[in-house]
């Protein structure tokens, strides 16, 4: 019986290792059934449809340009949850050693976030953000060809106070779901 257990454990471990190859996808699927979290997935097909969206706004054009080379987006977002910090830490340790390079890490009291990237031939192919506070937890991943400058400039281009906007977005998302 010991051997059977051993075999099963080995099998599961093997499968686990397989699944961990794409840490975020795994994370994403593990939160799929959790109603406390907002899950957003946008595929490359959908991104290709964005080009058809007509906007008269200059800012929108800017934005469309910034996302033109993106191939995917995944978001797990939970506000007013419990154990956000624990989830944050566990997410960080899940991602560790999966080929991500730390880009920046901010620990500011109850607001912690970390940016990580995957690079290939000097092009950033994946941008991962993990953010956590006591009552919130967010994971966001961008796939494709990522232009950090364009993305960082988005917030200022939109001429919106960064923090206010963030609050508005968070509130809006809760309403929307």
């Amino acid at each position, binding site marked *: 019986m010991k051997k059977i257990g051993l075999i099963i454990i080995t*099998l599961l471990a093997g499968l686990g290792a397989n699944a961990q190859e794409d840490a975020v996808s795994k994370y994403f699927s593990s939160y799929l059934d959790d109603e406390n979290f907002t899950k957003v997935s946008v595929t490359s097909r959908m991104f290709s449809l964005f080009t058809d969206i007509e906007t008269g706004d200059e800012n929108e054009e800017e934005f469309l340009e910034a996302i033109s080379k993106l191939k995917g987006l995944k978001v797990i977002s939970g506000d007013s949850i419990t154990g956000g910090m624990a989830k944050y830490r566990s997410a960080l340790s899940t991602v560790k050693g999966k080929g991500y390079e730390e880009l920046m890490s901010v620990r500011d009291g109850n607001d912690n976030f970390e940016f990580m990237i995957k690079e290939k031939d000097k092009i950033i192919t994946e941008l991962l953000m993990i953010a956590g506070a006591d009552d919130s937890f967010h994971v966001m991943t961008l796939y494709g060809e990522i232009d*950090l400058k364009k993305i960082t400039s988005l917030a200022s281009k939109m001429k919106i106070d960064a923090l206010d906007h963030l609050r508005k977005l968070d509130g809006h998302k809760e309403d929307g779901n």
Partner: protein
Amino acid sequence: MEQKELKYLLEKYWKAETTLEEERFLKDFFASNLSQGFEKESELFKYFNKTSNDFLNKSFDEKILSRIEKKDVKVISLQRFLVSWKAAAVVSGIIVATLVLKNPFGSSNAEMADTFDNPKDAYEATKEALMIISTKMNRGREATMKLGQFSEAQEKVADVDFETADTNN
């Protein structure tokens, strides 16, 4: 028996040079005689006489045999093990099958699926997400700049900025 002769024989005995006959003679002698000055040797040889009658009794054979038979039982259990191996193979086969079958309909499908059917909604969601990312990134940059710590991470951002600035101009 002369004391001298006895002493000589004993000395020979302790050197392990006595013949079997001499040893038997010593045993017999101490069994029947009490010789002064040789009380210790006398005790020893009496003990030898006593224990020489001890043989392995029948239960020894039984014990050994039962142990050998136990080994047989182990062999049987090994054969059982082969059976359980088959069981293990079947069980693991089922596990693998369920996991493989489940995945296409489960997580990977969900991973692939778009959350939104409408590009407009997806666009808005993407915008929101990018705004959060952008805002946080700006905050992180501001914080590092304020601190004046040119960490490796910040340098990376700066590098990227530089490259894109070049290509833009």
